[in-house]
């Protein structure tokens, strides 16, 4: 194993300790629940509470998207495992200002069960919690509502957080998240497995020199395995799947994310971005803005995903909203 950890069962606690110390201007852990990261930049204005979360091992997702005009809290689970109901509920108690809260997370069975139980606990106390599950991973299912959420999460988080920051009410904030989710499509490729810190072992086996198109962020098997091919060919294939699924036409504007999964050099990511930009420009699709880097990872997995958001004026305004979060300009 090429991981620098102590006790593999303590990685989440030690991650959170380091993260909150490194970014103490922005975030802290709840005093009575160390699995809830809360923003120190919430201020005292009344707004819809934005709560995100999921398993650990995807850093900077989810904890790093907490800050000014972004998420108010992030609920933290074990590695690749959704948080339990109590921290989901405690996050609501911590950030609700009377206007209710919105839960947003990737669409996985475990997350749905636990966050739903957290929402039920909050409802028992009269706090309204709505939920938007993110479904950007194109190849994970034919039915959009069954798809899982991957790097496209961050656009949905930002759109809803901006709507909340503007003072909109819970139904409108939820609608903003749903709109961003519907406009967002992703597809990834893995060139290696990743290492579970508790066992030191790969979460799945992959031959050296192979790649898997469409692999999920937890190593869920994708479309097919193949020998690694040149970057441009891989990009063309991924974009092919995305564009087949997404109604992006000549003249449309898009927000592009080329996301590293943790172990892929930035050099390669820019080579990928270069090709994405070429293909889109050939099709007359305008890149409004882009992000290139590690925004949602799978620990030490070598791989990347491409996300395209189809923009309109409303989404542009929401995604341009000024935010202040640790380390990332977005």
């Amino acid at each position, binding site marked *: 194993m090429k991981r620098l950890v102590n006790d593999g*069962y303590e990685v989440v606690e030690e991650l959170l300790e380091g993260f909150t110390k490194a970014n103490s201007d922005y975030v802290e852990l709840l005093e009575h629940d160390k699995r809830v990261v809360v923003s120190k930049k919430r201020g005292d204005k009344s707004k819809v509470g934005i709560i995100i979360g999921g*398993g650990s091992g995807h850093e900077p997702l989810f904890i790093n998207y907490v800050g000014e005009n972004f998420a108010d809290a992030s609920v933290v*689970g*074990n*590695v*690749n*495992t*959704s*948080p*339990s*109901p*109590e921290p989901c509920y405690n996050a609501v108690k911590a950030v609700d200002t009377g206007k209710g809260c919105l839960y947003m997370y990737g669409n*996985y*069975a*475990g997350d749905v*069960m*636990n966050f739903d*139980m957290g929402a039920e606990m909050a409802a028992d106390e009269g706090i309204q919690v709505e939920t938007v599950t993110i479904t950007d991973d194109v190849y*994970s*299912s034919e039915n959009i509502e*069954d*798809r*899982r959420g991957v790097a496209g999460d961050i656009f949905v988080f930002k759109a809803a957080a901006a709507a909340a920051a503007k003072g909109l009410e819970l139904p409108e904030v939820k609608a903003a998240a749903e709109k961003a989710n519907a406009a967002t499509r992703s597809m990834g490729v893995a060139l290696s497995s990743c290492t*579970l810190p*508790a*066992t030191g*072992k790969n*979460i*799945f*086996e992959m031959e050296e020199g192979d790649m898997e198109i469409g692999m*999920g962020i*937890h*190593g*869920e*098997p994708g479309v097919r395995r193949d020998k690694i091919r040149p970057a441009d060919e891989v990009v063309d294939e991924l974009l092919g799947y995305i564009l087949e699924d997404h109604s992006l036409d000549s003249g449309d504007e898009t927000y592009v994310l080329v996301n590293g999964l943790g172990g892929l050099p930035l050099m390669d990511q820019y080579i990928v971005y270069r090709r994405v930009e070429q293909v889109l420009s050939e099709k007359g699709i305008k890149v409004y803005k882009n992000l290139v880097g590690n925004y949602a990872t799978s620990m030490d997995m070598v791989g990347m995903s491409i996300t395209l958001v189809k923009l309109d004026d409303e989404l542009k305004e929401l995604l341009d909203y000024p935010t202040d979060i640790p380390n990332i300009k977005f």
Partner: protein
Amino acid sequence: MSTLVLDREYFINVFRDMLPFVDKESEHLQQLDSAIGDGDHGINLTIGFREVAKQLDTINENAADISTIFKKVGMLLLGKVGGSSGPLYGSFFMKAGKDVTGKNEVTFDEFCGMLLNGIESIQLRGKAELGDKTMIDAFLPGAEVLKQDSPEDPVEKFTAFVEAMKEGAESTIPLIAKKGRAMRLGERAIGHKDPGAESAWMMMEVFLKRLKEAASA
């Protein structure tokens, strides 16, 4: 009607056996989960039962009744495990304890009723049907055995219960998953056993081992 009575000591012992059990089977469960899930099923159960092991002495010393023991174990799993297993096994144990408040011993038939309550709660929370390639494929055939009047002998009946669950887990191998992470695999889930169905029958086997001791005592 069986005359076997299970006291709180029996249940404390069973829950004490759970950590060595998951430690031993963790790798096997991870391998199943790596094939069609995310490879951490054994790890998350270990995390949960470590906490149970840590708190079991306190629960025992506080002279908790059987209902409280089950509810505490369920809440610890719910709080520590996360994922799908946390809410499902957490609900299972919490609801298994609901009808035996204040009791320090239960008859074998009452115990069967507790397990049926637990199984019902897994259905409610997970919303899975038979054939979806989940732990329900093990639990439902097991529940059918528990509901029958025969065999009368508790050890025979519980053995049949565990066997039915084990066969149910085997029956998931050729299935396409309709719930959970494996759902996205489509036909590629075929040929792999569901890790949740596997851990379910194995966990019930831990109850069986101690039951044999209790019956022969």
